[in-house]
Structures are given as C-alpha cells and as structure tokens.
C-alpha cells in the first residue's frame, strides 16, 4: 500500500516565478492538507482540501492556492515567489469523509524542498 507521495523532491526557482507541487494521498484517503516547514520550525498549516474544495485555510497570502482532483490528489501553487517561500512543503492525507479528519491521524508525505534564489 503506497503511502503519501509528493513530487518533485527538490525544486529551485528564482524570485517572481511560479511553482506547482503535487501530492497523491494514501490509498483510501480523501482529505489532503498542505503544510510549510521553514528551517528549524514546525510545519505551518496552509490549507486543506476535501471533495475538491478548500475547506479551510491558514494564515497564508493568496499567492498560495491549491486544487484537489476527483482522484483526491492535490496540487499546491505558489505565485510570485519570494525568498521567504524557501521551505519544505509537506502534504498530509487523512481518512474518513467530512468528519474523519477530526478522528483520524494525518499521514505525511516526504515533502518537496523548494529553494527560491
């Protein structure tokens, strides 16, 4: 059973560019959450997708947007990249429909390391 997968593993971009990160949830999971982890910090919640809609959002600017597809996979898009966007981007999936996210653990993927020069 494949766990959460993310692509690409590493990415180098320059300021002002745009980036798209991808996530496939664990088999059977339908909710995907994205987190940003800066060096030396704990992950910070960006947003969560369920049923192809953004269910909730953390304190991130509109430059951060996402999408969830019918097969539950998800994308994170970041526009107008800033140096401060350099971080490890983690995707987490959880099981259980509308309420499962409150009862079931979130499983994390290996992350995408984004470097903005």
């Amino acid at each position, binding site marked *: 059973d494949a766990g*959460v997968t993310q692509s690409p593993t590493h990415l180098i971009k320059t300021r002002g560019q745009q980036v798209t990160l991808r996530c496939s949830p664990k088999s059977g999971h339908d909710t995907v959450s994205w987190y940003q982890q800066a060096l030396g910090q*704990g*992950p910070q919640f960006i947003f969560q997708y369920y049923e192809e809609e953004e*269910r*909730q959002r953390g304190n991130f600017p509109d430059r951060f947007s996402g999408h969830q597809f019918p097969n539950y996979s998800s994308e994170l898009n970041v526009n107008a990249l800033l140096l401060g966007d350099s971080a490890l981007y*983690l995707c987490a999936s959880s099981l259980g429909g509308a309420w499962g996210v*409150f009862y079931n653990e979130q499983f*994390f*993927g290996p*992350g995408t390391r984004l470097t903005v020069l």
Partner: protein
Amino acid sequence: EDKVVQSPLSLVVHEGDTVTLNCSYEVTNFRSLLWYKQEKKAPTFLFMLTSSGIEKKSGRLSSILDKKELFSILNITATQTGDSAIYLCAPLLGGSQGNLIFGKGTKLSVKP
C-alpha cells in the same frame, strides 16, 4: 492565538538513557493531540491522544495527555541511536477546522 510550546528544544543523551519530552498548548477547539517523529523529511505518526490520563504505549515510547493542565509528555526509555530525530507535537483542532498546529519540535540526539 493558538500556541504550542515544546521543551526542551534540543537534548543530547547517551544510549540507554530515558528521556521525557514536553508539550504545552493553548488552542481553541482542541480535539486531540498528535506526536510525530521527523528524521529526514516526512513526519511519521507516533500517537494520537484524545482522553486525559490514558497512557498510550508503543514499544519503548509512551505518551500521556493532561487536558486540564493543557500538556502532554512523550517518554522514551532505553534510548537508541535510531531514536535521534525531531519530535513534534501537534494539537488537532476540532469545530470546523481539522488542522494540526505544530510546535517547533524537540531535537533529540542519542550518542552511542
């Protein structure tokens, strides 16, 4: 504002030692608390604690939650070099939320 504080921030011990990692939290709509171990990239799930006072165990690791005092501890007995990692605690929010709020983590180094 939701807040999670872990202590100590870093810890160096020798193999065989027992360690206690602390996590205190102040969050709205608390649902449960999760512990993760992060070695290189992906945090791996350790425990989910929902009820106060009930210890959860997995091998040499155990954890307990105190919902009245708003803290949790993670104990590791007979530490091994493979326990070296960053340990993250994260309250899971309820209500209409369902996201995790992470602390900065405790970096544990176990020396041979």
